């Protein structure tokens, strides 16, 4: 049986798709057969981040409607043969997804895959609800600012009450915190919430802190998940996230203000 992971946040633009692409690639690179599904029907993005947009023929909605088989729609990643992408439809909207249809697709994938990563759309409406409903684990992606934290808190409430595990009174969805776009310098100067401020409200198991990094944008534009960029801090931080999720113990990195040191020496401003 596959483990179903939902990457969710409530708020938009916090890094859900970047995270989905990175952790799916990270899991696959370690030899786990992984599928990543774009639930953002109508605003298809995951294929761009994964660099497979020119190979999309059939999509998630086609499979749900029985117009294509799962094997026809799944796209094998060009960098890792253990990773498959199920793209969203760009021409439809979230109403094209049904609870029953999503359940069928996930069940079929579960027979073959070890991990299924569901990239949730923003918001708390149907698309987001369907992305989280069947989840076993939830990666709650949060930026260090108040509105993102509150939206994440709301999402956690929905996970605890509306997921299938909640409905069936099973063991609750395991919730993890992923703090993204973290800027240690701005945290230090008080412009940005720190880890403690966020944890004060969310109190979740922390899976990792991804520092704000230029390499994320360039990786997105190039269509290569940032985790493959071993030189970038964000890439290495995602690598840590995957390792921690799989049970390894890794110390937190990239949360100290390294620029402070240079600023002291050169007296410059950034």
């Amino acid at each position: 049986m596959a483990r179903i992971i939902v990457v969710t946040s409530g708020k938009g633009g916090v890094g859900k798709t970047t995270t989905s692409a990175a952790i799916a690639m990270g899991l696959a690179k370690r030899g786990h057969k992984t599928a990543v599904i774009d639930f953002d029907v109508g605003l298809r993005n995951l294929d761009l981040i994964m660099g497979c947009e020119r190979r999309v023929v059939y999509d998630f909605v086609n499979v749900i409607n029985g117009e294509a088989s799962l094997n026809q729609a799944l796209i094998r990643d060009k960098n890792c043969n253990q990773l498959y992408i199920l793209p969203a439809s760009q021409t439809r909207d979230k109403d094209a997804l049904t609870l029953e249809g999503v359940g069928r697709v996930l069940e079929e994938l579960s027979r073959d895959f070890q991990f299924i990563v569901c990239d949730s759309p923003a918001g708390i409406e149907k698309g987001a609800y369907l992305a989280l409903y069947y989840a076993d684990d939830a990666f709650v992606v949060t930026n260090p600012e108040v509105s993102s934290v509150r939206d994440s808190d709301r999402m956690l409430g929905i996970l605890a009450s509306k997921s299938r595990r909640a409905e069936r009174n099973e063991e609750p969805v395991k919730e993890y915190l992923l703090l993204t776009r973290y800027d240690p310098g701005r945290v230090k100067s008080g412009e940005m919430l720190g880890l403690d401020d966020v944890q004060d409200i969310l109190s979740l198991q922390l899976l990792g802190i991804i520092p704000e990094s230029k390499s994320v944008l360039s990786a997105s534009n190039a269509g290569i998940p940032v985790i493959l960029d071993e030189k970038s801090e964000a890439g290495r931080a995602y690598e840590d996230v995957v390792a921690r999720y799989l049970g390894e113990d890794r110390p937190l990195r990239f949360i100290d203000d390294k620029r402070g040191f240079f600023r002291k020496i050169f007296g410059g401003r950034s």
Partner: protein
Amino acid sequence: MTTSSSVLEFKSSTFFSPILILYSNDLAAIEQSLQDKINRAPDFFKNSPLIIDLRELNKSGLDISVIEVAGMLRKIGMFPIGVRGGNEQQDKQAHKLSIPVDAGRENDSTAATSAASSRKETETQVLERDSVENNEFRNPASSVGRMESVSAPPEPVKSMLITQPVRSGQRIYARGDLIVMSQVSAGAEIMAEGNIHVYNTLRGRALAGVQGNTAARIFCLDLQAELISISGDYKTSEHLTEQIKKRPVQVYLQDHALIIKEIA
């Protein structure tokens, strides 16, 4: 489960239903007051069955049309399922609406004493009526009469225990006391007809005594609430003074004033 030949089966069972006792025949005022109660606990009152009690009204010589009351109740999402204590005309009106009428009016005086008597006695009374009714189930009025006697013993009110965090957007309603072991997030709402205990940080809204219990209290270990209310009297976070913010406190009502006191 059932034998293949049977189409239906009669079973005697009991259920609880709230009784709406009217003290005024001002329909608009009744509706307003009900609406207020519904707004405080929409899930509790949604599609709730209800028995209309007109005894007090008729005692004070005030008349009201059952048709109008039932219409108003249905409009706001409640289901009137019985009428008791009505006069002849009100009973006729109820019949017209197919709402059963409590025929046990001759028990008026005994009903009062039975409510006051010990619960054990009332229970045996219920059992007796049960057995009588099995022979008389063709009489539809007796079913409402039974309901009355069942709702007479004090309902055991259990306290509700929450161990998971109450997240933003979640609402919890407890009919008795509410005990929360985890934090209550901003944007969450916890309500109780009795007391509220939060053994953690309270950032959301907490409303105790929502059915009018002015003796209800709120206790929490770390007060950062958006709003606290007891029996309708409330304070928002704007009105929390610095001395009690982020402190362990209790909140109670004294002469309609909300008192927030640090627990030493």
